[in-house]
């Protein structure tokens, strides 16, 4: 293509360095923000003030920051749940259903020990809390095992199965917490029961202990894919199923395993938000919103190219923006949905800029032809 007296060409890139990827992503974010700035202008708000309000609430405000962190941790766990099957070339669109499964598992354990409302639990918190976490990961893993098993055994499309299970999980929770359901809360508000204070998740360094756990999960996954034979087998299967089969890697077990692991981590995300985030400690009426929030895990996983450590800043960004965006909507009296618009545009620019992960633009001055 010619632009003025320059020839513009695209060249394929062999590899992209971490620094390049960071610069490309930052550029994408800046351009995305600039585009949404036009919406701010249209609404009569100076975009700089708008963004200042969003970011200062999300990352500096003493009320906003903990909310941002809790959302980001949730998104990070969902990202990890997406990444594991992604490395095996499979699509986990079912983090929502799996985290519902995790919530049911955790609250089921709590209920079994009578850790409900103002009741005194029948066992010590030191036993109930670990069992609740176990219940959460088993619940998530069970929901995850279904698409994994079907994929490995019958080559069923995992996208369809996980999507369906999202609906099943959603209505399963609705059934459990409705009036008369086993998990119903008091007062007919259509929400689940509140946990006994003694089984609230413990805090660590001023935040819930699930924050360091989520970071550890990301680090562990990074290690798994970089160093272990298990991670190697998953990657090999994802890149070339026929070569993996040749090397003796089971085409039945890998899908099952990655979905169990993914579901397990999504279950942990369910535990984190419903049983560990301060101020909640129950399955709320709007639990469906968290299912929706889990989908940011997909975009986060794609942008970070399956690198769980690179996903951390993106999870922070999305967590902060969902939080700050909603806040300024009220504060600056912007139209409804500005937070969704912001995130939507950012996702598009981030994904569009991935083009530059694979291509370099080369400018060359054209010699004057006689």
């Amino acid at each position, binding site marked *: 293509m010619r632009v003025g007296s320059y020839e513009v060409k695209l060249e394929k890139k062999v590899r992209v360095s971490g620094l390049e990827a960071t610069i490309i992503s930052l550029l994408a974010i800046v351009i995305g923000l600039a585009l949404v700035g036009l919406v701010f202008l249209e609404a009569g708000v100076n975009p700089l003030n708008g963004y200042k309000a969003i970011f200062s609430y999300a990352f500096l405000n003493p009320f906003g920051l903990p909310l941002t962190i809790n959302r980001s941790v949730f998104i990070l766990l969902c990202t990890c749940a997406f990444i594991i099957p992604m490395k095996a070339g499979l699509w986990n669109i079912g983090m929502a259903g799996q985290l519902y499964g995790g919530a049911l598992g955790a609250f089921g354990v709590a209920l079994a020990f009578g850790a409900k409302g103002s009741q005194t639990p029948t066992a010590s918190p030191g036993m109930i809390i670990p069992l609740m976490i176990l219940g959460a990961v088993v619940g998530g893993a069970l929901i995850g095992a279904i698409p994994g098993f079907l994929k490995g055994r019958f080559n069923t499309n995992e996208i369809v199965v996980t999507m369906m299970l999202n609906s099943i999980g959603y209505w399963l929770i609705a059934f459990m917490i409705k009036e008369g359901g086993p998990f119903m809360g008091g007062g007919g508000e259509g929400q689940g029961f509140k946990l006994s204070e003694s089984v609230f998740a413990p805090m660590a360094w001023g935040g819930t202990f699930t924050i360091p756990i989520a970071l550890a999960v990301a680090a562990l996954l990074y290690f798994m894919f970089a160093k272990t034979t298990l991670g190697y087998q998953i990657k090999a299967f994802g890149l*070339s199923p*026929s070569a993996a089969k040749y090397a*003796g890697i089971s085409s039945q077990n890998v899908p099952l395993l990655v979905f169990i692991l993914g579901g397990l981590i999504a279950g942990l995300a369910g535990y984190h938000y419903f049983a560990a985030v301060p101020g909640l400690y129950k399955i709320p009426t709007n639990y469906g919103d968290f299912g929706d929030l889990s989908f940011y895990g997909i975009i986060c996983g794609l942008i970070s190219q399956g690198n769980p450590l690179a996903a951390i800043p993106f999870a922070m960004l999305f967590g902060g923006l969902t939080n700050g965006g909603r806040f300024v909507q009220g504060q600056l009296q912007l139209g409804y949905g500005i937070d969704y618009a912001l995130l939507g545009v950012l996702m598009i620019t981030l994904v569009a800029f991935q083009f530059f992960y694979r291509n370099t633009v080369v400018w060359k001055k054209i010699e004057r032809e006689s």
Partner: protein
Amino acid sequence: MPNQPVKRGDTVLEARGITKRFPGVVANDHIDFEIRAGEIHAILGENGAGKTTLMKILFGLIQPDEGEIYVQGEKVAFHSPLDAIHLGIGMVHQNRKLIPAHTVLENILLGHPKAGSIPDLRRTRDEIAGLCDRYGFKIDLKAKVWQLSEGEKQAVEILKTLYRGARILILDEPTSALAPPETEKLLESIRIMTGDDLALVPFITHKLPIVLGISDRVTVLRRGRVTARLRTAEATENSLAREMVGREVIFRLAHVDVKQGKPILEVDDLSALNDKGQLALRGISFTVHEGEILGIAGVSGNGQQVLAEVLAGLRKPVTGRISIDGVDITRSSSLERWKRGMGYIPSDRMNVGSIGAHSLVENVLMNYYFDGAYSSWGVVDSQKTRKLTEGLIAEYDIAAPGPETTAKSLSGGNLQKLILARVLSREPRLIIANLPTQGLDVGATEFVQNKLLEAKRQHAAILLISEDLDEVLSLSDRVAPIYEGEFMGVVSVKDARIEDIGAMMAGMKQKVAQP
């Protein structure tokens, strides 16, 4: 204008000082080269010599860093293959670029300027049928491409470029996928084309007999440079081979005599289905001993692939029994077989034998990730695997910048060396080698064959599946010609007559049963 009539012997395409650099390698180093009308010009070279790069430049697929191209004396610059096509250059790639679900006619029309409007199908069909008659292609234009044999698909690709008006035809390894009779037919058609002043055919290959048999002129490339430019009439098999690899190639391998030991692989009444659900193996029984090479000779598609997959544990048999070292492994997984000392060299290097996006270390790991010596507690010993890979690169003389290079950047011969190195380094007791030298140049072929003989010397039992009868005869102790999923006999090479084996490959049962 370049598109003017030419006379036989005119220079129609000329390249001057073509240079193309890729990161870490000069693929083409100041190549001068010309093609004349009515001539077959062969480009000969080892894998990685720069043949394909040069052809891609002449077809406009990639742009050279330096150098000029002249078509009929006019300087031209190709920005894309479209520019080349407009000047009458057509290319037939090594890998088919046809749509299997469409008919031959539709495939030929696809991309043709006429297909933009509503084509007059009857007229185009007549025109294409005319081309078929002229060049001796016998193809049903209404047939779907998936129903065609490899040779017929090749013909469709050639017809497609001719119908677009190509007068300079570039064929990249045109015979590599063809059975011998199909090769003959193709060469016959090419001869007719050159008789026609319009068609001129440079020919890229590393098969010496074909070069000698058909071409008028040869340009030999080695490591990106032209090492020889001569008339074929002045060349001999040995002189060309020397220019190509820079040394004398031994064509006859010394037969390695090893005392045969106990049976390693025992197969009894083995039957299996192919992907289409047809019976492709029909009750085969055989034994391979320690220090023995059993060669399976046959024309492509007679059940060899299915046999290799069943033995490697990648396909379930319908009937029969397989045992290694006397242990029944019929139901064992592929992984268990690897652990029992099986080593499988698959025919599809790119999709089965390697993972292109992975580094060489990770590719070596394909046969080592399950080995306790290279991991502990599930964590790969990266230093040890890296050292192993570096050792294999050195020992097998694999041309690669380093162990972190991706496998897809290796040329075909080097990729095969990597696979061979990885499999043989496990010191397998049983080696299944499926088409181990297919598509390789003379030097790499010789290398692979010597490595197999070396493994034989180390008392491995080797099952060699090959479509190259010379290879089977020079390496094997016994030969089993396979035809439509059945062995036509098992012959000891010492007292085999090549006509007999050829006849068995064509479906004649062995006359006298051997003990």
